[in-house]
Structures are given as structure tokens and as C-alpha cells.
């Protein structure tokens, strides 16, 4: 089966790297071209749906004139800070949840409850608790990822083969050594993947976090442009977020491959 040259359409067939890249680029270009054509021919109203050419021109313009890169950096900083907090809290707690049944039993209902709350619903409370400053923004971003991440970490830990844990104990590891040298190492590849995915979720809360009395960040830029019905700026802001996501995700994938060559 695998000997036959595959066009990438056979079920779970092989797809060479070069071809993969080509398909990815062609598909993206096709979508952009369709979008461009649709507005040029008036099938879509360019006022509401500015074509890619306008959007990218605006994007460049905003970088040059409106400090877009600064806003992007501010947003990235917020996302990484909040996400970093989520990670350092979720890893030990998630590992504890599946290591000690009592911890799991205690936390699971609470986590499940909070996990299903829509983040926007907590904006008012967050403002009451933290004011309208940086803390609220970080809190909202943290809220969107921490509880999701917690359960994913607990799951990763649960999937560490019992054998690994017992090998550690039978060569004389103490529980803390077993956790750091074996359990954590064993779950790292899937944990890394989960972090990559949840980092993306964190970005999706950015607008919510940055419309609360912000004067910086991509969410602020988008929200401000909306007020003046400046669709192309709104679109350019959205595209900026998408591009950051695209590059981060690809970079993390490459890092994953590099870090876990032993898989």
C-alpha cells in the first residue's frame, strides 16, 4: 500500500513533506483569491468584507503608522504571562489530581463547574475584584485556560504507564524523584501538545480581556476600529492575531519534533 505513490487522498496515506507544504500554501492562496475575487466582482460588499489586498495594505499601514507591532507585543506579553501562570499552576495541581484520588475527587466538580462558565460572564466580577487594570486582563486570560489545562494535565498524568512509576520505585526513587524524573518526563510529549493547543485558546479570549478599559493590545485596536466602522482595520487586527497564532503553532510543532526525537 505505502509503496504506491499517494496523492494524499488515500485514507491515512503518506504525504511527503514538500507536497504537504505545497498543498497547504495552495489552499491558503485559493481561499485568499476567492475572497479577493468575490469582493472585486461585488458578490460581497467590500465595506463589510474588505478584500485581502486592502486588509494587507491596512496591516502594513497600521504597522507603520499606528504602532501595530507594539500592540501585538503587548497582547503577546499578556497572553504569555497569563498562560505561564496557568501552566505553572496547572502542572503540579493536575499531577496531584491524578496521583491522589482524594485531590481528584475534591477538585473535579469545582473544575468542571468553572470550566463551563463563559469567560465573558465573569467580566463584571473580575472588574469588581481586580479593577480595570492589567490584573483583570491577566485574570480573564488565565481563567480561560487554567481550568481546561488542569484537566488535560491530570489526563496526561493518568496515562503515564504504571510500569514506569514502579521501575522508579524499585530502583530506589523517592516519590518526589519519581514525579520529576519519571512521571513528568513520561507525560512531557503529550503535555507539550496540550500546551500548544491551550495557548491557542488563550488567544481567543484576548478580545474579551482587552475591551475592558484597555488602551493597548490587539483587542483594543480591533475594538477601537469597530467604533468607527473601520472594517479593514478590524480585519487587519484579526489577521494579525491569526498570523501570530500560525507562526507560534508552527514554531511549537518544530520544537516538539526537535525535543522529542526519541518518539
Amino acid at each position, binding site marked *: 500500500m505505502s509503496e504506491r505513490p499517494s496523492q494524499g487522498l488515500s485514507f491515512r496515506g503518506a504525504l511527503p513533506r514538500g507536497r504537504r507544504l505545497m498543498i497547504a500554501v495552495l489552499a491558503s492562496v485559493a481561499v485568499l483569491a476567492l475572497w479577493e475575487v468575490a469582493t472585486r466582482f461585488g458578490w460581497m460588499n467590500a465595506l463589510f468584507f474588505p478584500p485581502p489586498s486592502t486588509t494587507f495594505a491596512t496591516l502594513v499601514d497600521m504597522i507603520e503608522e499606528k504602532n501595530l507591532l507594539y500592540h501585538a507585543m503587548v497582547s503577546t506579553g499578556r497572553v504569555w504571562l497569563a498562560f505561564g501562570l496557568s501552566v505553572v499552576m496547572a502542572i503540579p495541581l493536575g499531577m496531584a489530581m491524578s496521583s491522589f484520588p482524594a485531590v481528584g475527587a475534591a477538585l473535579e466538580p469545582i473544575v468542571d463547574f468553572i470550566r463551563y462558565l463563559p469567560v465573558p460572564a465573569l467580566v463584571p466580577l473580575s472588574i469588581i475584584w481586580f479593577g480595570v487594570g492589567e490584573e483583570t486582563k491577566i485574570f480573564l486570560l488565565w481563567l480561560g485556560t487554567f481550568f481546561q489545562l488542569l484537566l488535560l494535565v491530570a489526563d496526561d498524568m493518568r496515562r503515564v504507564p504504571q510500569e*514506569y512509576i514502579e*521501575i522508579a*520505585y*524499585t*530502583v530506589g526513587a523517592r516519590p518526589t524523584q519519581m514525579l520529576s524524573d519519571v512521571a513528568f518526563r513520561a507525560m512531557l510529549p503529550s503535555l507539550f501538545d496540550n500546551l500548544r493547543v491551550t495557548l491557542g485558546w488563550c488567544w481567543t479570549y484576548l478580545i474579551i480581556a482587552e475591551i475592558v478599559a484597555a488602551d493597548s493590545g490587539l483587542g483594543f485596536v480591533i475594538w477601537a476600529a469597530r467604533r468607527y466602522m473601520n472594517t479593514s482595520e478590524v480585519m487587519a487586527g484579526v489577521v494579525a492575531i491569526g498570523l501570530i497564532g500560525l507562526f507560534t503553532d508552527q514554531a511549537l510543532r518544530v520544537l516538539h519534533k526537535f525535543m522529542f526525537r526519541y518518539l
Partner: protein
Amino acid sequence: MPAPYLVFKSVSKNFGALEVVSPSFDLEVKRREFVVFLGPSGSGKTTLMRMVGGLETPTKGQITIDGQPVEGPDRSRGMVFQSYSSFPWLTVAQNVAFGMKYRLDISPKKKKERLAHYLALVGLTDFANVYPNKVSGGMRQRIAIARTLAAGSEILLMDEPFGALDAQRREDLQLQLRLIQQQDAKTVIFVTHDVDEAVFLADRIIVFSKRPARMLEEIDVTALLGTERTLALRDSEAFFHLRTKILRLVRASAGADE
């Protein structure tokens, strides 16, 4: 008659309502003896072995080693599992060295020497720096054996360690294991449901009933075949007879439903 080394004293075990070892199991294992637990799957062999490893505790009775009751896992009792027997994120050498990682009583220099010694003993010197995903299943089991030896285990607890290997690799590893056990003077408890493997490796075979585990029969293989095990022995009449006899026992123990 040497004093017994590893002793199961009226051991029974249940998991909740499930009786796994019942009513009670008694066995005395001599130092340097190779004991094989043979029996139908689900009969409780693994559970008995895990109690020696200190990974389970008997519901009743106790297990002693040199008169000392077993309390929790210890590096004097190393485990070799059928799967997940080595860490994929460590190289072959790092996996073997992991056995000594928590030993403060050996100097780093001595650790290096021991590592080289045990890598050579299991024939993995040339693969020292590759990751386990690049070596065969048989080599992965040799990594695990070397790790327990490096850890300084006196008792090797092996739970169907060759169960996932093809026939040829199995024979190779059985031969090597028996040699290592004799040279290094280790006590081994080895679980399998392969009668050939049991006869080839064991000084003594314990045949188990279906669950709850009871000892059905005890076979002194060494009295019948001697201590030296070679490939030629496999083709001998004595081997064949013993194998047939045990096969019958095992069939009877598995019951009519299998």
C-alpha cells in the same frame, strides 16, 4: 540444607471481594534459585510476584527475605515488565544507568565502570547511545535486565518479559538470561504461561490453578535436567517428556472451558 531465602508464609490476597490468592500460599525459595510461576492467565501469578516486589501487600500472611518481612519496593528486588520496560526518553546507556541513579553509595567513577560492565554483559555496548525506539523488542528487554542488575538487585522479578517477542529472539534471550542468572548468582521469579520457556529456564516450576491461585504441582526441573541449559537440551528426550507432562498438567488446570 541451606536456610530458605525467600519465603511466602500463608499468603493470601484479595482485591475487595475478588479472591486472587486463596486460601493460602506457601513457598520457600532458595538463594540463587530460578523459580518459574506457570499457570493460566488471570490466576494470580503477577499478583504474587508483585507482593515480593513490595508493590502489593498480602491480605494475610507475609513474605520474608532472609527472615525480614518485605515492606514496599526496594532496589534489591528489581522488576522486568513485559511492556514499558524501559524509558523511551533515555538512551540505552542512560536507561541502564537509571538503576544506579539513586545510589549514593557508589562513586560516579564506579558507576561508569558498572554501566560498561552490564552493557557488555547483555550485549548492548554498541547501542549505548541510541534511544530504545531504535532497537528491537529483545534488546529493550535486555536493557531492563541490565538496569535491574546495575541497581544491585539480588532478586529479579520477571513478569512474562519475553511474551511479546518472536520465537527466535525468545530462545536467544532465555539462553542469555539463564547464563546471567548462573554467573551473577541471582534469585529469579519468572512468570510465564509458555511451558517450553518454563522448562528451559527453571530450577523449579510452580504450576498454578485457575483463580484463586493455589499451587497445583511443584516440579524440580534441575533434579531431572541438571543446571546447565543449552540449545541441545531443548531437543533432548528428557526435555520433551517433561514438557509433555507439564503441558498435560496445565491443560487440566485450565479446565474444560479452555
